[in-house]
């Protein structure tokens, strides 16, 4: 009798979401950063930042404009190298390999880490040549048939092939905005990357084209490590499994997307995603 009484709860005990993202237990980390900092001249844009990005999953970076999320994204394929005043510190590894190692070939790195930008930017070439360009310069195709196969496969994976198969020789710039963005994704896929970085890939697209891209991202995550920077919280909630919230150059909170959008632990994350004054 006493034992039975003792087992009854006398107060609420809360089942809380775990601090460690569940996704990191299910996937191995693809990208690991330690103490990454970025300076533009004297101005510090990123304060020491540690994060693990899971493989075969979509990670979303969210945060207000100027919070450093795009800057950080651009560190991952060393796009910041192209800005003369930018200095990157700390360590970033992909599959354990330091990508800032002086011996590393940046061109090879950018083939492994593809990027898709806010505005679709197809080359002023035919649809076919847009895709074939990368495989050609990286010597991925032995002959014409090989190359045609790569182009077809890339377009198929990007969900664009059916729409353009009869006009592969027409200019890529003649496609609609959503089709151009899928062309850019196909172009990124063509060189067999491990990682695809997307910087606001849907912000210039209408809702239907956006839905197509989101559907595509969801399919691609089976084979790639994808990172998406987005201003649309709904988009981050829909497409990603891991969400990282940035503010003023620091990583405020990272966690399973579900947890971040239903019950964030940090006050600043909460205020941002609920649209409140911070």
């Amino acid at each position: 009798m006493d034992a039975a009484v003792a087992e009854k709860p006398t107060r609420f005990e809360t089942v809380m979401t775990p601090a460690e993202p569940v996704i990191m237990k299910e996937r191995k980390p693809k990208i690991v950063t330690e103490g990454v900092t970025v300076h533009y001249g004297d101005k510090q844009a990123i304060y020491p930042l540690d994060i693990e990005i899971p493989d075969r999953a979509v990670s979303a970076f969210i945060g207000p404009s100027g919070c450093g999320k795009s800057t950080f994204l651009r560190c991952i394929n060393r796009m910041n190298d192209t800005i003369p005043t930018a200095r990157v510190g700390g360590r970033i590894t992909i599959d354990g390999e330091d990508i800032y190692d002086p011996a590393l070939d940046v061109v090879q790195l950018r083939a492994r880490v593809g990027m898709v930008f806010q505005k679709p930017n197809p080359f002023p070439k035919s649809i076919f040549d847009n895709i074939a360009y990368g495989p050609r310069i990286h010597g991925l195709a032995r002959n014409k048939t090989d190359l045609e196969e790569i182009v077809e496969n890339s377009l198929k994976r990007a969900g664009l092939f059916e729409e353009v198969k009869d006009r592969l020789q027409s200019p890529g710039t003649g496609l609609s905005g959503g089709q151009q963005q899928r062309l850019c994704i196909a172009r990124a896929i063509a060189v067999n990357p491990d990682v695809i970085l997307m910087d606001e890939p849907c912000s210039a697209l209408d809702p239907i084209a956006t839905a197509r891209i989101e559907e595509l991202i969801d399919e691609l995550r089976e084979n790639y490590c994808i990172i998406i920077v987005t201003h649309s919280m709904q988009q981050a909630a829909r497409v990603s499994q891991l969400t990282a919230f940035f503010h003023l150059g620091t990583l405020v909170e990272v966690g399973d997307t579900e947890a971040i959008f239903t019950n964030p632990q940090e006050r600043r994350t909460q205020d941002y995603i609920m649209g409140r004054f911070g």
Partner: protein
Amino acid sequence: MNTHIVSAFDEELAELRKLIAQMGGLAEDQFGKSIDALSSSDRELAEKVIASDEKIDRLEKELEERAIKLIAKRQPMAADLRAIIVAIRISSDLERIGDLAKNIAKRTLAVDEPLPRSVNAGMKRMAELALEQLTDVLDAYARLDVGKAQDVWVKDSRIDALYNSVFRELLTYMMEDARTIGMCTHLLFGAKNIERIGDHTTNIAENIHYLITGGAPKGERPKEDATSITPVQLPAK
């Protein structure tokens, strides 16, 4: 918590809270009156309670419509989303409490003789406790007081304990005198309704906990209602 950048959002959320407060006030009032009607065989009061239930139903519909519009318009996240979902859930518990009060009032019309004194006292005590719990939980919601919600959650077992004794007592009456079966059956349902009101009140307490912490309460709530496993033994002939 900081206010929203879009101030209309704050006003719309406040509107939901106001509707819950109104529904809660009505539910308390209806429940109190239904018990008064039953214990003093006041048919006129019972009719009033039955007629007024529709007000709570109307408020629930209004709240639901507003909540749906809010979700569609604002795409709420985190605590905002919880506030809206919890408002919908609490309103449905309050609407059920209103229905149960109406049902107690209906029993008044079906029982046309005075209640046995000790049963009357037992049911009134149950109702007092349940009403106090309801008042406390509405207070906890208005003040976002998780401690108070927790007290309500734990204290429901007192109502269960009283229900057990009313149940046994009514069984005894029925076994002693078959002519009381009609009245006692109605009273048994009445007591069950009060016990159910207690359960809805604890649902509200759990939702307040979720609203504030974002987590579900762990484990089983302490319960003492044993009537569903109480055997009924007829006296030997």
